């Protein structure tokens, strides 16, 4: 889960390995807000897998790669 200067840098870093998923920082920031913003709340409760999947789905992070299983 790394940050790169551009998609060209991702390709070079992969060096022929199969790529995972590349997303813009805007999407990552939105994902982080949805995923972590309640982390320090006094009434925090663990989310279910379905709730986590719904966060990914809501940001368009769908398909087999983003399937939490």
């Amino acid at each position: 889960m790394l940050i790169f200067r551009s998609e060209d840098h991702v390709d070079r870093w992969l060096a022929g390995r199969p790529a995972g998923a590349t997303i813009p920082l805007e999407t990552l920031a939105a994902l982080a807000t949805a995923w972590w913003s309640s982390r320090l709340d006094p009434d925090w409760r663990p989310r279910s897998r379905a709730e986590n999947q719904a966060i990914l789905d809501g940001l368009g992070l769908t398909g087999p790669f983003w399937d939490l299983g």
Partner: protein
Amino acid sequence: MDAADLDLRNATYQLFIELGQAPSPAEVAAALGMDEETVRSGWRRLHDDHALVLDETGQIRMANPFAARPTPFVVDAAGRSWFANCGWDAFGIGAALHVDSTIHTTCADCADDLDIEVRDGRPTASDLVFHVLVPARSWWNDIGFT
């Protein structure tokens, strides 16, 4: 996760924020008025539930999004510098603290410095990208590698 473990988890996170670093079992035990072994056994259950990540000695390695050890992701937020476990967690620290932040990292390919301002939850640098190598269903198989 039962109520006692939830209280332990919340107290551990609260101490992490207060101290600016991962608390020890003794520090959490003192804060909660319990013995260290109760903290350690509770942490192991939280580790198994993916609510914390412990190292091989039973100390906190990750209280996601916060990292207990130095990493290539340094986040300035709320008057402190924090370590994040990965790029996702780097954005998560400001989100968890509900403050603006600045992320200092490097391009994983070319090692150029990348300084990313996050204001109102949005990055000011829009040309960078984030890559996830491991499919979601396998993230917890080896969370350190993920």
